[in-house]
């Protein structure tokens, strides 16, 4: 694979829905990320979770207002981070 194909992208987001990342939200994240050809990680503080693994995502315990760094690597890293960003911005469709 060419060097230019394997991107690394990082971006920080805020969890803005009142209930934080609970099971339903985590399912949305996993479902979305699995569509992209990229390894995607969610990082909160010291902890790091695979965004393709629902329990891993849940154990990050992201409550309302937590800051989450999304780190992606792979040919579709950019797209994955953008798509996740939209999901965060829409507050996962919740209040």
């Amino acid at each position, binding site marked *: 694979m060419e060097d230019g194909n394997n991107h690394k992208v990082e971006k*920080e987001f805020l969890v803005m829905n009142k209930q934080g990342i*609970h*099971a339903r939200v985590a*399912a949305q994240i996993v479902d979305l990320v699995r569509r992209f050809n990229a390894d995607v990680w969610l990082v909160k503080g010291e902890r790091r979770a695979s965004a393709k693994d629902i*329990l*891993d995502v849940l154990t990050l*315990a992201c409550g309302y207002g937590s800051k989450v760094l999304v780190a992606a690597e792979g040919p579709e890293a950019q797209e994955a981070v953008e798509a996740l960003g939209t999901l*965060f911005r829409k507050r996962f469709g919740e209040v």
Partner: protein
Amino acid sequence: MRDGSYKVKGVGVSQGIAIGKAFVVRRGPVSIPYYTLWSDEAIEEECRKFEEAVKLVDEDLAGIKKNLRNDLKEYDSLLDAYRLMLRDRIIYDGTLELIREKQLNALWALSLTFEKARKIFDGNENTSIADRVYDIGAVIDRLMRKLSGSQDDIFSPIKERSILVTYDLSPSDAAQLPLEKVMAFVLDIGGKTSHTAIIARSLNIPAVMATGQGSKKIQTGDLLIVDGTSGEVLVNPSEDEIQHYVELQLKLDTYLRDIARKASLPAVTRDGVRVVVEANIELLEEIVAARDNGAEGIGLFRTEFGFMNREEMPTEEELFQEYRQLAELMAPGEVIIRTLDVGSDKLSAWFPHVYEPNPALGLRSIRFCLKYPEIIKTQMRAILRAGAVAKNVRMMFPLVSGVGELRTVKAILREVKDELRRARVQFDDEMPIGIMIEVPSAVAIADLLAKEVDFFSVGTNDLIQYAIAIDRQNEHVAHLFEALHPGILRMLHITVREAHKVGIPVSVCGEMAGEPFYVPVLLGLGFDKLSMNPQSIPRVKNLISRSFKKHCESFVREILRKDTPEDIRHLLMKTIEEQFPEEYHFFHSGFLV
């Protein structure tokens, strides 16, 4: 009371009264056999059994999802979550690994897996995580029942309309229930925010949770009265009690229907004083709920959302489009747009985060905007322009603590107007401006501030927090958060008095406005407007239109002389009971909690 009649007390999580027969579902934990597998064939067989169980549960969940009732559609994604958990690395791979490597039987392996998952969560100090473990538990429970071959269609014996009494109900259970046959839920555990509570509310079914022992004491066939407001369950009640509740149920239904029907009318007291009732919202979509519930305007539009989770500052054009739509949808009703009310920590993408030991007292809200004036200038331009069409937009500044600060803001506003004028952009030059009263110093100088603006709006949540020095999120002191503290009432009194001295309107947009039981207090203090979450509007409007302003005023004179919140609360309850007996009757138990 007749023989064998008693009460079970829990927490009311979904309003309403149900009277009917109990249907008790007792589901003990699955009993787990422990043995090791002695041959490769046995191991493979056990793995196959486990995979088969996963497949069957997955199909069950898919089936439930497919047949989900329309009013439970929001649980759709929860069922997806459950299906993902089934195949999760820790649960699925982890269990198979234990079967293969430690030669454990599947149920044993699965129970160890659950323990492991639970430990991962327990290591976390965040308490809200309990819900998340709950969901994993619900999935594993299904899987265990499938593996142990126990009957999982536990609800099919419900033949007639009944009150479901059980230990707990997972959302996938609830989705499987013949809901048309369920008159109410009574659960041993849970609380106001648990899934089942939310389901019950969205289906409009009364529910009582956290009864502790309810499902052990109550027997199938017992006659129950469930009061979803007070959290009481009467078991085998007397004829008199039944009679009483049948009437209560009928009255409550009629009462709420009646109130909802009249919600679109303006709220005028019986002695002819008009009180404007408005809605607090933060998303454009919420305007529908606001109007449906009878809001006459938007008393507080929170603008923070438009600024968060973005890679860069929103442009003036983006903000303008949003505010313009809002103004048009609500016209001719007013729309009060509050300028950005956050600290740098929430805007991390484009601001360096400053470490603040005490953010509530830190660089936030109007102070933050004054440090970075470009933000508020952009917002001011968008708000001023949005007012050009219907002239119904007002601008409100949060967290103002002194006159100097306010004058700086006003100077910026003048500058912005000059720029717009020079650029020949249309805007509302006469737009009224107001401030939130939420800092104690602002109350102390309310007379000075009142001369500078066109309206006041009291943010009771922050005012109470700052005035009593209570962080409501802190469980050790949260009980001291008290709207009826004599100190708070005096501050509200001063604020209204000083506003009215110079003839500007004053409203409440904090949570206090949305609690119907505070109507006599706020009316008596002389507030001109109340702004609240849309759902509270019908009940608040109803109480206003049944009040005499004059009575409320003498009531407030009386409570202003009292020494403690307890005394005031006692008087308030008495007044509500006398003047609004139905309101008291139906809701007082919920107010006390």
